[in-house]
């Protein structure tokens, strides 16, 4: 162990440090509180029917079984919901990246008339509660016969300003010299963006991509109102509607559905943790 770690031991100068011991105890308590619901969900989902309501609660089933998962996938179009979620989140993410990268470039790097006002209007929408948009978007989609399409679920989410803000901030930090060197080589604006800005901005692009994807994957209110068929319904809406179908006491199947929806997200998160942390800490926005 390195020198810096020795300082962190609960033993200091040969005696027990109660302050540090307390901090470790609190940290372990915190980890249990935030970890236990996941474990409980998973354990419930692999219990046989007669063990779900066992009292006192048991943290591991006597006879683990995947029966609830079989029942879940037999009774509900989970795979269709997953496919819908995947398609919707992909459309939103690709559209967001393409339009945001293009918009961030002039906002960060060009002087043009109206720059300040465009930025101000875009940023002011951070404070706009989205509920005000639901009725007009809904009526618009109905009017143009777009309800229950991937388009109607996915595209409005790409209007969100968070990515533009994040990328504009990042583009501002790229050295002017690089841009000038590119210009001397005869690069057009678009060439500069493609050959200099995008390669240098990979981390921020990844952050926006992952953030947008998860936000879209988990979005609830808008997909709930704009899709009411299994052909386009996303996973969260499927789960909520499915719980609403009077299965309120079948916790085994319900926990299997929650686990099926959660496990991919958790794996995704564990692989890409640092991008989430960066996205939140640089913008304050939380998906």
């Amino acid at each position, binding site marked *: 162990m390195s020198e810096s770690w020795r300082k962190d031991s609960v033993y200091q100068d040969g005696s027990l440090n109660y302050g540090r011991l307390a901090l470790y105890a609190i940290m372990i308590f*915190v980890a249990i509180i935030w970890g236990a619901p996941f474990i409980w969900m998973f354990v419930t989902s692999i219990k046989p029917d007669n063990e779900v309501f066992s009292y006192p609660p048991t943290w591991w089933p006597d006879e683990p079984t995947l029966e609830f998962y079989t029942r879940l996938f037999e009774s509900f179009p989970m795979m269709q919901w997953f496919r819908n979620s995947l398609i919707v989140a992909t459309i939103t993410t690709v559209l967001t990246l393409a339009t945001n990268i293009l918009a961030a470039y002039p906002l960060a790097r060009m002087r043009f008339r109206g720059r300040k006002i465009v930025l101000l209007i875009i940023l002011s929408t951070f404070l706009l509660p989205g509920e005000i948009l639901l009725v007009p978007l809904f009526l618009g989609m109905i009017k143009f016969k777009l309800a229950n399409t991937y388009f109607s679920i996915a595209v409005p989410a790409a209007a969100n300003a968070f990515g533009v803000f994040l990328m504009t901030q990042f583009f501002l930090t790229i050295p002017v010299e690089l841009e000038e060197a590119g210009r001397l080589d005869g690069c057009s604006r678009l060439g500069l963006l493609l050959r200099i800005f995008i390669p240098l901005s990979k981390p921020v692009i990844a952050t926006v991509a992952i953030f947008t994807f998860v936000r879209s994957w988990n979005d609830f209110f808008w997909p709930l109102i704009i899709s009411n068929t299994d052909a386009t319904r996303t996973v969260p809406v499927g789960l909520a509607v499915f719980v609403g179908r009077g299965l309120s006491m079948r916790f085994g199947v319900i926990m299997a559905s929650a686990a099926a929806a959660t496990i991919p997200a958790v794996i995704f998160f564990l692989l890409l943790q640092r991008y989430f942390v960066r996205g939140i800490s640089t913008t304050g926005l939380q998906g």
Partner: protein
Amino acid sequence: MSSPAPKKAKRATSSWISVKNDLIAYAFMAPYLFLFIVFLLLPAFVGVYASFTKWGIIGDPKWRGLKNYTKLLNSELFIESLQNTLYFVVLAAIPLIVLGFLLALLVNQKLRGRNIARAIVFLPHVVSVAAVGIIFKWILERSSGLLNYYLGLLGVNPPINWLGDPDSAMPAIAITTIWWTVNGNMIIYLAGLQDIPEDLYEAARIDGAGRWQEVRYVTIPMLLPVNAFVIPLTVIACWRVFGQVFVMTRGGPQGSTFTIAQYIYETAFVKFDMGVASAAGVILMLITLSFTVVQLRAMKVI
């Protein structure tokens, strides 16, 4: 030598260049601005307009002036939803801010395993509200729920009917919300903590400050700019609470968790009374905007 003619020509060229420059800039922004205007800006204005009209799911809007607003303010259900939401904001926003800060302090300590603790607290962030809602519905279940079992071991008897009792339903929704979203604030505060220069702490220590005095006189004042956005964003998010309620209680029992967003949902998408729902949306917007302005004023940010 310098005649006015070339000068004029030069000015003409430069203004032509600047127009061209403007055009290029707007061409780059055009795809995004199109999405932004069609799916955000325009709907926001239409939403405000709709609040002054009678508008069903089909047919054209009819102007009603302020009637939707007077109807709302005289509606017991709407006033109740305002009160319920305010109650939720108090129950959830304060812990979300304070606990977010305390968790950030904790996982910023040099403790072994702090990265694992951070990751575990952060995990609920990627889980959809539908899954969170149903997991907590099970944990909070009256007779076989995990929470009541452990509370029972601590001597809480009889078991609390969390989601079935009007007194405990909103606190239960708040607990769920805190578990689900406190991690966002934790991460923001953590980034703020890591930006505080170590010299400041050293200076405080030289002046004889203890651990808590360091927090009080260095950490908290240095986090003021962080608070300036954590607080409004948290409070706005709490005013908008929807998914948890929709999945866990649908506004019940006895309307005790019926929030503004729930009111908007029922009015617009169950009763199809778009005008009244829009007016409720505008009131929600006015509440969150005025809160933000008052708060930023109080913090002397604006």
